[in-house]
């Protein structure tokens, strides 16, 4: 990953610098988007490729490396943690990221990890915040379905420590984009992107959920009191369709044009098509007789 970052110097001009640069970037991007070896999110998706090119320009990486490491999770772009670490290591301003680990058992409550690196210009030791189980539990990261905090905690501690360190000391490298594992942790267990994003909205969501649950158990909507009015009055029962014989009799007995028309109206209610044809013929035959 370091090699990918270092061996492909960033394009000197941003694709969004001016019209000419954009046209050139479009041509290059179109070629990349038509490749089958770029990740799926970028195949035949010129806008995504152009954004990857711009990101590559800003962080000094190759567009291909960005495309391989910038993933879209539930609609959000996110870095692979290893790429973020590689980007920090390759940027030249810091010594390679290292991790201070306290404790031998990653599953123990006292286990904690933080990332450190030295600023090469000032020689300052840049120390990231501790990642602790208390933090993991309070943020609910380990409570998500299939959480990797439960299956590979040591690696998750390091990835999260690196993400936090980068956000504090080199935000220009992460561009404010979270890592893949962070996005998975902070995306609540709701369907799609409908999850509430702010604490206040989460509170409203929880309040409504409680009210709904309470209403379901205490006030069942679908069970009206016995003495309450019925939800909808029963409509009168529809009369049975007249039989072909009944319509035949009505047509035969009709003495006036009105009576014949009235009987004629019933023909369409007879289900049998052959009978209807026969009745229509009778109606036609009788029409001149009753005029």
């Amino acid at each position, binding site marked *: 990953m370091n090699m990918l970052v270092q061996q492909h110097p960033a394009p000197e001009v941003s694709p969004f610098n001016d019209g000419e640069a954009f046209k050139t970037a479009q041509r290059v991007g179109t070629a990349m988007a038509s490749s089958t070896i770029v990740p799926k999110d970028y195949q035949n998706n010129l806008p995504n490729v152009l954004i990857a090119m711009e990101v590559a320009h800003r962080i000094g990486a190759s567009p291909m490396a960005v495309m391989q490491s910038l993933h879209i999770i539930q609609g959000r772009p996110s870095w692979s943690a290893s790429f973020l670490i590689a980007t920090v290591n390759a940027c030249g301003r810091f010594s390679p990221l290292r991790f201070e680990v306290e404790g031998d058992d990653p599953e123990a409550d006292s286990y904690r990890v933080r990332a450190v690196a030295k600023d090469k210009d000032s020689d300052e030791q840049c120390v990231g915040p501790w990642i602790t189980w208390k933090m993991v539990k309070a943020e609910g990261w380990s409570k998500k379905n299939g959480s990797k905090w439960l299956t590979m905690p040591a690696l998750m501690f390091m990835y999260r420590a690196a993400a936090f360190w980068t956000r504090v000391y080199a935000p220009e490298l992460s561009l404010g984009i979270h890592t893949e594992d962070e996005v998975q942790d902070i995306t609540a267990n709701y369907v799609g992107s*409908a999850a509430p994003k702010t604490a206040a909205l989460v509170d409203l969501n929880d309040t*409504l959920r409680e009210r709904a649950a309470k209403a379901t158990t205490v006030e069942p909507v679908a069970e009206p009191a016995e003495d309450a009015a019925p939800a909808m009055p029963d409509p009168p029962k529809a009369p049975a369709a*007249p039989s072909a014989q009944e319509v035949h009799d009505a047509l035969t007995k009709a003495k006036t044009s009105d009576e014949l028309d*009235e*009987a004629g109206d019933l023909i369409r*209610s007879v289900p049998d098509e052959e009978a209807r044809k026969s009745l229509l013929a009778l109606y036609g035959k009788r029409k001149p007789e009753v005029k």
Partner: protein
Amino acid sequence: MTPTNLIILDEAPEDYYVRRLDEANASGLKQMLRSPAHFKHWAENPDDDKSSPALDFGRAFHCATLEPDVFATTYVVLPDDAPQRPTVAMLNAAKPSDSSRERIAWWERFNADAVGKLILSAADYDRAQRMADSIRSHPVAAGLLVGGDREVTFRWQDDDTGLACKARADLYLPGEYLMDVKSCRDASHEGFARAVASYSYDLQQAHYLSGIRHCGDSIRWFVFLAIESEAPFVCQPHVLDVQAEQRGESLRAKAMRRQAECLQSGRWPGYSDQLNELSLPAWAYYQLEDAA
């Protein structure tokens, strides 16, 4: 709260839905965004869109969701196997046949039961009920329907323009939220976001929240309860993000200013009083590049 700023719990729909050039409500403001001429036409011709099958169903569904007790006493269902209405000839026949008498009697009984009620087809009745049931079985949406007042009118005077304003919320829970039920084709995040942008629901939110503030409440939330009008009638409550809220406020401010200016000048122009030099959308030029 000044005397002109009121929360009215029992305003009759026929009083609320009167349209006036000197009064601002969300529907009128959306027309105003199109052009003052469209707004004026809308305000002066309320009968043009007073009733349609879609509107009638929308009212029934709102009633089934928000006021199930009222729904039960207001609507009557016409069964699928109802006989056809008797013809004039049948009604006037001196000696109607047995089947005609049955048809006439059936409709007499039905009409007697339906006096003062609105008639819904069995299919629409079923659809309205299933949509309402979908909302009541959603773990969060159902909570929105607990408590609160239905069909609440807010009337106030706008500070900036001096215009008389009004809004009518589907549900108002004082101190907590306003809710508006929207039937739609696609209640998903992406689908409903398109609907909000297309139909300026964000403007509606800005208008309603302005009203509630003028009337002395400082609630924060406006919840859109989107419900799909086709099976399986999926519903999803949505709250607009900050950017969408701001867009709504900008759109409302623009429409309010325009209405106040037109009212003052007495002129209700269309799109522009000047000759327009027409530019084509960007996509039109892609065809040119393709051809080259």
